């Protein structure tokens, strides 16, 4: 009986799955076009899965092994099942025992894997969704167990007539359950949807450059430019269908593991953002309906079941609630912790900024101080609305060489808008002191410099970003320099990763940009700096998001601190897992209230490390962390620590000829 039943069941399931798949594809294709090399993508998919995805999953060894057993077992078992039971190769004399044996092994491996899945579901952490996901281990066991048992008679390990009784009917029922979840459910919805959507998402990912190749991978963290000249393109994303189709596909790949939720600083602060829920909101929007069936943690303070949407309806309600509330979108600090942790490689930050673009450009609804900051950027080219002519006031006694005068320099020192901030001016003065001691040939743009556009872009004002960027690009194109050095990771990121897309014929916009910590490390390695031994207490280092996760620079700041004689007390969350200070993405400007403040949590991390001083490398981080009331630790930029420790460097240069004495016509003191 089973021999008859199984092929019917298998092919029915496959047929239904194919139907579901075409429906799913139609849902995705509601999105805007995006040109993706389909075949190339499909060809790249296995490597992306096996290498890049597992690089992320592999951070949790148990889960990684569980997934290898379960998913690997399933894929093998499914293929073998079609061969053995569907096409009847199991009864073939030559191949039957081999295929059957492999099928037994595959389903057994999958069964073992599903036991681990079941174990994790016993007391699941809060970040995991419940609902259908709770039945998944049983479904996995039903499939693997059912297939295993159904294969035993095929191999003669059970009597042939085993397949004709009530037992066989019961076994068929188990197999139906398994097939339903694993094959039918894969395309019609259910936990296994992630396998289908996820595989295609990897193939058609909108940032193919994120994935490693045999030449090695690179980061892809710059936001993609809006084509403001394309009159047909919407300004950002107002409805789910405004996303490109492969973004929608990406949302559908979400496995609701909640790793994003666990690392999201806004979620931890009780602000109304849970990145996992946000992705699920988009999934709801793509097929239409309400979020009532969502079974994970909600956006803090936002009960589940009150939001609904349609593919062509607004994401953020014009009046009242729709799919997502605006404050959810404005809670994001763009720290990329979610993206970094996502095993499905979903691009949360891209999606959030896309939706912010709509709110800012189409609706003019940048909340709280956002609109004022954008007005300032438009009127004064800096977010604080300061007199543009005052950008160099802090350095009146430093006699900084201006690019306009010298035309070329080895290093172009990019000041950033911290030049208007008294706290950051101390960092800048320290950095200038370091450059001078190391006898670096540098110059600044002075009042020709504009805001990099970082804040405008992350607040969704793509037009202002592009205007500022093009202006800066035009200015930079007038001068010759080997590299840009900046103490602002946001400027660093935008100049290095986001200007390139705006290059025009004859005006390139590719720059070699260095964070000051990287540059100082290079100077130290070249023997151009020497430091007095460290006398202070315990020190920890806070990785700025835009230096670390955005640009992969974790090592240089630590090398500099080590050169200073500091033995770091690392925080639990450091390196690529560093917790955001709360200062990115315009979050301090839109200022969405939560239950706690993100910088307070970060300073608490500092406190737990036992350090009395936290070294930073970002003006935003400095401002946020220094704003913490009753903090247990002092906040110093790496440049300040370096400047304080400077002693006469080894004086003889490479050629052995004495250097020209430095004319000390400029302020030595760091104020």
């Amino acid at each position, binding site marked *: 009986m089973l021999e008859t039943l199984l092929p019917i069941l298998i092919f029915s399931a496959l047929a239904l799955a194919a139907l579901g798949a075409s429906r799913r594809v139609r849902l995705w294709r509601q999105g805007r076009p995006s040109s993706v090399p389909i075949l190339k993508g499909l060809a790249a998919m296995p490597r992306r899965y096996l290498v890049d995805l597992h690089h992320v999953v592999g951070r949790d060894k148990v889960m990684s092994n569980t997934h290898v057993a379960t998913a690997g077992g399933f894929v093998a078992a499914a293929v073998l099942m079609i061969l053995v039971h569907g096409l009847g190769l199991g009864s073939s004399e030559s191949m039957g025992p081999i295929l059957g044996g492999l099928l037994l092994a595959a389903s057994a491996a999958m069964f073992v894997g599903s036991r681990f899945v079941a174990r994790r579901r016993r007391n699941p952490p809060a970040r995991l969704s419940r609902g259908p996901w709770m039945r998944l281990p049983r479904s996995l066991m039903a499939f693997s167990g059912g297939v295993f048992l159904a294969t035993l008679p095929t191999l003669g390990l059970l009597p042939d007539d085993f397949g004709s009784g009530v037992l066989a009917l019961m076994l068929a029922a188990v197999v139906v359950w398994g097939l339903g979840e694993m094959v039918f459910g894969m395309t019609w919805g259910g936990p296994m949807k992630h396998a289908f959507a996820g595989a295609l998402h990897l193939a058609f990912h909108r940032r193919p450059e994120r994935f490693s190749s045999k030449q090695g991978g690179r980061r892809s963290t710059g936001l993609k430019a809006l084509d403001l000249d394309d009159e047909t393109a919407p300004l950002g994303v107002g409805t789910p269908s405004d996303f490109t189709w492969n973004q929608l596909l990406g949302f559908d790949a979400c496995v609701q593991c909640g790793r994003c939720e666990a690392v999201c600083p806004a979620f931890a602060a009780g602000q109304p953002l849970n990145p996992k829920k946000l992705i699920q909101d988009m999934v709801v929007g793509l097929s239409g309906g309400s979020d009532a069936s969502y079974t994970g943690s909600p956006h803090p303070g936002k009960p589940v079941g009150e939001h609904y949407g349609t593919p062509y309806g607004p994401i953020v309600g014009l009046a009242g609630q729709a799919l997502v509330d605006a404050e959810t979108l404005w809670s994001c600090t763009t720290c990329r912790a979610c993206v970094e942790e996502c095993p499905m490689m979903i691009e949360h930050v891209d999606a959030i900024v896309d939706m912010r673009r709509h709110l800012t450009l189409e609706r003019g609804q940048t909340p709280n101080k956002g609109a004022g900051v954008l007005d300032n950027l438009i009127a004064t080219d800096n977010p*604080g609305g*300061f*007199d543009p002519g*005052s950008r160099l*006031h*802090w350095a*009146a*006694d*430093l006699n900084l060489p201006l690019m306009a005068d010298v035309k070329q320099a080895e290093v172009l020192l990019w000041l950033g808008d911290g030049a*208007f*901030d*008294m*706290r950051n*001016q*101390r960092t800048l003065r320290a950095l200038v002191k370091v450059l001078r001691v190391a006898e670096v040939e540098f110059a600044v743009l002075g009042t020709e410099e504009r805001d990099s556009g970082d804040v405008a872009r992350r607040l969704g004002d793509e037009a202002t970003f592009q205007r500022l960027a093009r202006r800066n690009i035009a200015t930079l194109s007038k001068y010759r320099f080997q590299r840009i050095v900046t103490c602002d990771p946001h400027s660093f990121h935008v100049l290095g990763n986001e200007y390139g897309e705006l290059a025009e014929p004859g005006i390139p916009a590719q720059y070699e940009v260095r964070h000051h910590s990287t540059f100082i490390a290079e100077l130290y390695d070249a023997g151009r700096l020497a430091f007095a031994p460290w006398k202070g207490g315990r020190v920890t280092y806070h990785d700025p998001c835009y230096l670390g996760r955005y640009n992969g620079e974790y090592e240089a700041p630590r090398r500099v601190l080590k050169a200073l004689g500091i033995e770091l007390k690392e925080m639990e969350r450091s390196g690529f897992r560093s917790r955001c200070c709360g200062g990115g993405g315009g979050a301090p400007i839109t200022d969405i209230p939560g239950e706690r403040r993100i910088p307070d949590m970060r300073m608490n991390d500092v406190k737990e490390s036992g350090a009395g001083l936290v070294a930073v490398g970002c003006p935003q981080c400095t401002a946020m962390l220094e704003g913490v009331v009753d903090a247990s630790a002092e906040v110093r930029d790496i440049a300040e620590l370096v400047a304080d420790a400077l002693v006469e460097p080894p004086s003889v240069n490479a050629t052995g000829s004495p250097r020209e004495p430095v004319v*000390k*016509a*400029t*302020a*030595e*003191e760091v*104020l």
Partner: protein
Amino acid sequence: MAFDAIFEPIQIGTLTIRNRVVSTAHAEVYATDGGMTTERYVRYYAEKARGGCGLCICGGSSVVSIDSPQGWWSSVNLATDRIIPHFQNLADAVHRHGGKIMIQITHMGRRSRWDGFDWPTLLSPSGIREPVHRSTCKTIEEEEIWRIIGDFAQAARRAKEGGLDGVELSAVHQHLIDQFWSPRVNKREDQWGGSFENRMRFGMEVLKAVRAEVGDDFVVGMRICGDEFHPDGLSHDDMKQIAAYYDATGQVDFFGVIGSGCDTHNTLANVIPNMSYPPEPFLHLAAGIKAVVSVPVIHAQNIKDPNQAQRILEGGHVDLVGMTRAHIADPHLIAKIKMGQIDQIKQCVGANYCIDRQYQGLDVLCIQNAATSREYLGLPHIIEKSENPKRKVVVVGGGPGGMEAARVAAERGHDVTLFEVAEALGGQITIAAKAPNRDQIAGITRWYQLELARLNVDLRLGTRADEAALLDLRPDIVVLATGGQPFLSQRPEWGYSEESEESLVVSTWDILSGKVAPGKNVLIYDAICEFSGVSVADFLADKGAKVEIVTDDIKPGAAVGGTTFPTYYRSLYEKEVIMTSDLMLHKVYREGDGLVAVLENEYTGGLEERVVDQVVVENGVRPDEALYYALKEQSRNKGQLDLEALYAIQPQPCLGEERGEERGEERTEGGDGFLLFRLGDCTAPRNTHAAIYDALRLCKDF
């Protein structure tokens, strides 16, 4: 950006100044080496530049000619090329920190003394005596005029060759240039007097000669008065005319403007307004000058607070603010604004201890900052954390000495407890602040309160420290700053008793603190002639009492400084307080409901009587030594200070002995491990500065 107006750089001539804050010219009295700038001088200005000050104009009344004597106020002598290398040191020290430095140059004419050094014949346009310095002078001759014009040019050359950034020609404070300007002093009928142009001629020739000598790439400014406040002197309109006249030459790079002339005691007090004045009282005069000139205007008079400076600059009244006394109180004023430590700025309270010392020919010191002008000795403005073991330091007494001791010890990183018997910190400052228009002196206490809170000093207010309580804390160091009590028991005939019901006399503290209600008809006997006597007279008169203040000294308030006694006198005369000299309080006795004070004339021995209802005696302070003697024998150092170390700003040797000892070792009963020091009035009555200086130089090495 907060304070953006302060931090907007400005161009003066060819020079860029990094911010709008200036330390204006004042006599430092530090050029003690025959008019050459000393290391002390250099370090004093380097500290201001290090602290962020934009422009320092040094050398108030630095002389250009040998007949304008330098020695009285140890001012800088630009009459010789010997000064040039000294200037180079000074300029380098300031430039290293990004500051700019200019010097004021002048010939003081009649405004000096002749009775010493070279015994010069002083000069002035018409030979009229100057009252403040009691100086007589000759009428200047044509040849001398041209010599002095040449001396100005040579002095400016020396400043330029020394690397300074500019010179300020003093045409203020009744120096020779404005002696020519003012019809009150210039009665000449030749080409140097009479008409406006003639009175202007000397200054104009000086300006032309200086500019010709230094060229265009060197700053030349003028400091002028905004109104002499004399009916026969230069009015504000006159000064506007003068400023516009010189400005029209295009040869002046800036004007510094000061309200008030100063050739009488009363007008002199306006020049450096003490705490009785409102903020920036003469800003309107500077603003008036700014309205008629085309170059930046600097104004300094009672600008002490960053917010005030920002407000003045933002309002566009002047281009730069002088915060000179503010920098004497805290040379790191600008740095603290930039560090976001505005609450940590030690603000000038207008006690005018600095300038009142200067008028006596003494070095300029700050009443509340003992490190100022002692940088060269190694006294720190910023106290570094100690590398020694953490100590338990107990300070007894919350007056200025005790507060400074607690602050410095806490900055050194020690565990500090401070006992104060009163409910608030301040000691005698609290009492002094009760007098009319003297409330700002409490600013000294306010700063310490903020600092001690910031430094987590354990404050035990309202708590009398006895021997047991002290030893219970197992201190490593005990600092006694317990002050003393009014010394009314010196003459039994005064009838003082500790039982207030029986005592015939009360103290100035009793009155000012409110412990004793003011009488209606009061005799104050002031044997000291400093602030307390005149303060209590002003206080009582303010409450409606009829007051006579009597002293056996020259005059009541005689020991109050030259910029402060005039404001007391203005108030006392207005309230019809009688000031009597040369009488000693012989005896007080009760007669009926009243009291009879018997006064004895110092010079005749004759007795006279006053029938009053209250006798207040100011006879200084008797040190409170009881706790000291209770602890002295138990202490490791027997309470003794090593004076050689103290005066040389070196650590007390006994600190080293203690340091060498094993810490945590079992101590014998009674905590006999502590060092004992005392400072301030509990040793001998001196003043606020003395107490703070002792505390700083002692505790900086804890």
